[in-house]
């Protein structure tokens, strides 16, 4: 009897937890959605107006017809260097992501499946380096880059990002759990070298995590400002650097500034439409592991 009652109460409790949320929850989520998207609409609203739109007290909430005109003003502005900045951003983000994925997976494979002395200490060291703030090394890094004459070149932005502690840690976690030891053993017995085992067995097995790491690194590199701003210049910028130039130029005309902001944001928005789901999964997956 008591068993039966507790069974019923348990089921009631389960039902209470699993019930579909009400309108309040969806209302709240919709409000968050609107807040997430409003800045984009605002940029388009101002970016499709003219120099006076922002300060117009009777501003219309309907976009104007000047967006292409303003976008052209951004693109044709020589000091903003838009196409060069876009190309540079694509090059830097792609090279950095590819390199981070390759070297992190290689190191992750060694940490997860290799047996070597000092392994644990080295992995802890990698994790420890994540806590060192980047700002601490900006001054000497700049001195080094100018000594080599690399300031103003893309190499100065690419090289410091070629492999990250986060990437190594992330891939170690994933490979340790996703790649069975037997598979590695089998490769070894067949006489494959460690590198062949990595290339033909570990790399394919790590593909989902590698894709997420690549996506995440691409976004972080694309949006990065501080170091590129310091080491690059207006004639060879990345997108964030040239946006800063745009603001300094058109300090009164926000319609052009915000048109430029939209142009610089669209590429990642498109990427998000296609890969946003993976990004969400990646962030949530990494959180549980980390």
């Amino acid at each position, binding site marked *: 009897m008591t068993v039966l009652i507790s069974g019923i109460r348990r089921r009631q409790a389960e039902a209470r937890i699993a019930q579909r949320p009400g309108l309040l929850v969806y209302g709240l989520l919709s409000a968050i959605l609107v807040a*997430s998207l409003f800045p984009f609409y605002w940029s388009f609203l101002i970016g499709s107006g003219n120099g006076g739109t922002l300060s117009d007290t009777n501003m219309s909430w309907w976009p104007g017809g000047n967006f292409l005109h303003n976008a052209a003003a951004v693109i044709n502005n020589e000091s903003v260097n838009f196409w060069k900045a876009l190309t540079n951003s694509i090059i830097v983000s792609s090279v950095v992501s590819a390199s981070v994925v390759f070297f992190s997976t290689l190191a992750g494979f*060694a940490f997860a499946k290799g047996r070597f002395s000092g392994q644990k200490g080295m992995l802890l060291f990698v994790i420890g380096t994540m806590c060192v703030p980047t700002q601490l090394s900006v001054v000497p890094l700049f001195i080094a880059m100018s000594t080599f004459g690399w300031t103003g070149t893309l190499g100065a932005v690419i090289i410091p990002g070629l492999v990250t502690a986060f990437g190594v840690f992330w891939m170690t976690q994933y490979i340790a759990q996703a790649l069975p030891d037997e598979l590695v053993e089998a490769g070894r017995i067949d006489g494959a070298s460690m590198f062949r085992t990595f290339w033909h067995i570990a790399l394919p097995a790590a593909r989902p995590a590698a894709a997420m790491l690549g996506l995440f690194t691409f*976004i972080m590199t694309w949006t990065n400002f501080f170091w590129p701003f310091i080491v690059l210049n207006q004639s060879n910028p990345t997108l*964030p650097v040239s946006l800063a130039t745009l603001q300094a130029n058109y300090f009164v005309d926000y319609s052009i500034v915000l048109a430029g902001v939209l142009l610089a944001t669209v590429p990642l928005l498109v990427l998000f439409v296609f890969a946003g789901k993976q990004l969400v999964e990646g962030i949530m997956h990494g959180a549980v592991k980390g």
Partner: protein
Amino acid sequence: MTTSTFVVPERTRSRLAFRESLGRWDVRFSPYLFVSPFFILFALVGLFPLLYTGWVAVHQWDLLGGQGKWVGFDNFTFVLQQRQFWVAVRNTLSIFLVSAVPQLIFAIVIAAVLDSNLRNKTFWRMSVLVPFVVMPVAVALIFGSMFGERYGLVNRTLAHVGIAPILWHTDPFASHVAIATMVNFRWTGYNALILLAGMQAIPRDLYESAAIDGAGRINRFFRITIPQLRPTLIFVIITATIGGLQIFDEPRLYDQNGLGGENQQWMTMTIYLYKLGWTQLNFGRAAAVAWLLFVVIVAIGLVNLAITRRIASNEGPAN
């Protein structure tokens, strides 16, 4: 039955032995080779600069002229005597607090909402992450255009409900609120997803037994969710501390000059570092600020760790 009767020619045997030792060498040393790119790169762009910052900080060092004479701790004492330095510390901490506290609360609430049994889960999760793909520079320009003192959208909206215009650029605290808004726009959803992952890892039977005991939704949230979330909370708070105290992009683009306002209303420590190094061309002092910033980050990080531990272990059936 001793050994194989098969006779191996001498040459093949030595080749086999060679291959075997090559294989052993491969197993022993390849892992070092595989992890070496990280360590080499870290030595070059992490460790060396870290130590070299200390070296630069105890010298007179000009951006153009290079290394000057040894000055001991003069750069540190100079910086520590500047009013601007302390204003920068105040601003950095103020912006950090004004952004981190509401951000964390909102992120927990959003995570809890996303943790309910939603339809179209993926859609709602993606919707909170959209701001993350916008570069901070763009966020700063967009929000900067809303926080104008005379015609800004925010002040105009406030005027509709009868609130006097707020001096978003002139008043230090108001400028911190505006900058914190930019930070929170970009990071709240991201942190909400991390907290959501933490929430989903909490065993469901904990909730069930609490529900059997008659605990309501609010009660379950404070007695189970928050204490169980402790490791995730610590992770989120520590990363937010390290990133937040180094803030540069948003205050840099909050006006056209980028040096933190006429009276340093929103000049953060990193902007001060930039100002010393790249507009005053004094690398020695900039390096000193870099080290002081590091000290502040470690100190605040430890304080936050202590607070998080206390808050999350006070109650609940955890442990």
